[in-house]
């Protein structure tokens, strides 16, 4: 149900942009108003969500330790998987965010009759995830060409590296291919692996379809149904300079692309995509394992009602005395 719902939702969204621009001529709405609104929702939403997390304290220091702890000088400890210092935590987080350290650990359980169970390393999800996120980033950075004048050197450099193979005209970007392949992989594993299909919600399919549609519309626009790229840049520069303009004759596919991106921006802070910000705040990862060395303070720590020693001794005094155990009150 979630799959079909998500698929048709994205189709309908694309259709709305198509109809809105092509037949109703709402260029300004789809080219300016919606992108602005989406951007504001994105920024405000992101900040709101992060602040919301931030407003709940971290009462206990609960890192999941992924390696040997620091104890004696003669025991080598795992500085990155079980950090003791802030520097180590930064290292652990960098590995987590930049290289998906935890996902790299992934194993696959192989269950055979007997029973005999083995656990093999499996890197496909790690690889697919990494490919998806990094190509997404590259594509995003390449798009800076549309929002800057003059175009910064690193963007041009990135483009030339990305188009290294010089195939086709316009030059085929590697990132486009890997990106579409990675999104497809992430989608297909959800559909094919029975357990993953079982846990998948509309909230999992929808962003995949949306991102896939954004990617496809971009690829179509670049390689097949060419749009007026000069007009596009006029529009995007108008947006960043806060002097929006709507050049004539850009082509409807651009508006579909832009509308779907706007939807992604709005959807982002409402959804699981917030894992992008959330990973930085995860208390099992971003804290040092030094609980016995430095005290962690819980802001809502409060005194509790206990069974005191005096009450205990009152309960058992005679028995304690008979057993030769010292007591406070004879």
């Amino acid at each position, binding site marked *: 149900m979630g799959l079909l719902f998500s698929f048709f939702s994205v189709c309908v969204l694309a259709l709305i942009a198509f109809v809105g621009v092509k037949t109703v001529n709402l260029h300004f709405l789809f080219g300016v108003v919606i992108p602005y609104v989406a951007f504001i929702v994105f920024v405000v939403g992101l900040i709101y969500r992060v602040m919301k997390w931030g407003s709940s304290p971290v009462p206990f220091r609960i890192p999941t330790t992924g390696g*040997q702890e620091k104890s004696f000088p003669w025991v080598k400890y795992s500085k990155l998987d079980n950090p003791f210092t802030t520097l180590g935590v930064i290292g652990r987080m960098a590995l987590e965010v930049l290289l998906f350290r935890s996902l790299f650990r992934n194993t696959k359980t192989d269950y055979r009759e007997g029973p005999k169970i083995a656990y093999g390393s499996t890197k496909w*999800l790690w690889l697919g995830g990494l490919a998806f996120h990094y190509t997404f980033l590259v594509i995003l950075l390449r798009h800076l060409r549309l929002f800057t004048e003059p175009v910064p050197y690193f963007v041009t450099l990135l483009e030339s590296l990305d188009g290294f193979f010089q195939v086709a005209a316009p030059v085929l970007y590697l990132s486009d291919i890997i990106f579409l392949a990675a999104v497809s992989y992430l989608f297909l594993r959800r559909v094919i692996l029975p357990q*993953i299909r079982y846990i998948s919600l509309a909230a999992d399919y929808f962003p995949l379809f949306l991102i896939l549609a954004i990617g496809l519309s971009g690829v179509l626009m670049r390689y097949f149904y060419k749009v007026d790229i000069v007009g596009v840049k006029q529009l995007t520069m108008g947006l960043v300079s806060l002097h929006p303009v709507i050049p004539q004759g850009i082509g409807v596919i651009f508006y579909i692309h832009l509308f779907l991106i706007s939807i992604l921006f709005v959807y982002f802070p409402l959804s699981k995509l917030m894992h992008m910000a959330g990973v930085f705040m995860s208390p099992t990862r971003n804290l040092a394992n030094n609980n016995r060395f430095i005290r962690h303070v819980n802001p809502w720590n409060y005194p509790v009602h*206990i069974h005191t020693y005096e009450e205990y001794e009152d309960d058992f005094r005679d028995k304690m005395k008979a057993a030769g155990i010292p007591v406070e009150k004879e």
Partner: protein
Amino acid sequence: MAKAKFPTPEELSKISYTPPQKGWMDTPVDIRPGIFCWGAKEKSLKPIGFPNARDWNPTDEDWKIQENWKEIFLETMGDLLKKYRSFRLFMDICVRCGACADKCHYFIGGGDPKNMPVLRGELLRSIYRRYFTASGKALGKIAGARELTMDVLKELWYYAYQCSECRRCSLFCPYGIDTAEITIMARELLNRLGLNIEWIAGPVANCYRTGNHLGLQPHTIRDSFDMFLDDVETITGIRVAPTFNRKGAEILLVIPSGDMFADPGTFTTMGELLLFNELGLDYTISTYASEGGNFGFFTTNEMAKRLHTKIYSEAKRLGVKWILGGECGHMWRVWHQYHNTWFGPIDFLEEPVSPITGTKFENAKSNKTVHIIEFTADLIRNGKLNIDKSRNDHLKVTFHDSCNPARGMGFFEEPRYVIKSVCNNFYDMPDNTIREQTFCCGSGSGLNAGENMETRLRGGLPRANAVRYVHEKFGVNMLANICAIDRAALPPLMDYWVPGVRVTGTHELVANAMVFKGEKKRVTDMRGDPLPGMEGKENV
């Protein structure tokens, strides 16, 4: 448990991982005997002031909970979301990538899809979405939200007590989502409605009154020690005389009460006390703070704190310098990750220093508690112990990393160093089953009851399977550990899946190998089995 009907290992190991056709939200909970534990009784909840104390049966239709239970549940949930960033974050950021799915021992050994950590989380997340997010309120099921109904509550209860809070899934989660944390929250919520299990509530009530889970009263503790110290004398010729509640001792020793009462735990205690006796250590044991473990941790955060306040207050009353903690798993999670926050700053004790070696336990300087394995590792490292490793030559040993010291501390090398120093034959289990990837014994977090034996045996299968590997390959016959729950839970697990492998605490192995001053000719180990070359000779 009806023994006659209990499935054989062959039957139990026929596991299907194929999820049902129908979605999980539309699959109602089936509360199955062998899987669940009995509900907490009135007599266990009343003394600790827990709400809705009454006798109830999970198989009954009516669970006799408060009229306004939904209100209580949601109010508490809102409160917990405000108090724990972990909770709010873990409700929000799961992407359901499924990396955790086959990491849970209960899922591997049972195949119930709701034991995949991701779905265990979704059980609560779906409620969170319905009542605490705009999209869930507006879109309902399509946003992954669902109404909190009695059936949903029952399902939550059923699975909250099929998670041992081992945190193996959290190691593999790309965002560090910790299902233990989610289960802890679920149990907080359930406890407000009186929905605990008796196997946890009973020990908590005992611990509150008598100081330990088993409900051992002061004179019983003394008697129990005397009994196994008689055995020590028979085996070694040495009379060990520990002191109880003695003021002015240098060190307060706190061990899990399981090690005071039943073997093989008592063998571990025998080893520890022999070691201290040999060193002439100035220590005492408290009958009031007579429990290192903390089943309160499996109810609510507040109860956990209520139970363990006694440890530091007793250290203060007795005027000791620092605290030495025994071999126990969840005990060390609580001591290491919670004590300092609950009870600190611990300014009435001194930074721990080994009186034998002079080593400062730098890493414990703030909360002033040292793990007994750290203490012994340091002794061995400094050559303070007279060890004859060959006395353990009848044993081929492997080591089970307990979940909590593994993923809550990173306590891997110290126990291995100790074991390898006292045993010639040590073989680690395969890499994906030890250290930070270790598998639970299947009975952690208060699930080591009798009535849920199927859950325990299924959950323990991945551990047992790894033991069987080294048993068949190297002839391993002894499973060492540093956890009292392990010592209680692993023997039946081994008997079921890997007959021929026995279970030992680490200090039992230490005492086996130690040559004590003035000992008589040793013919048996701590548990009375003949030492190598001494077969047929009896202790006299």
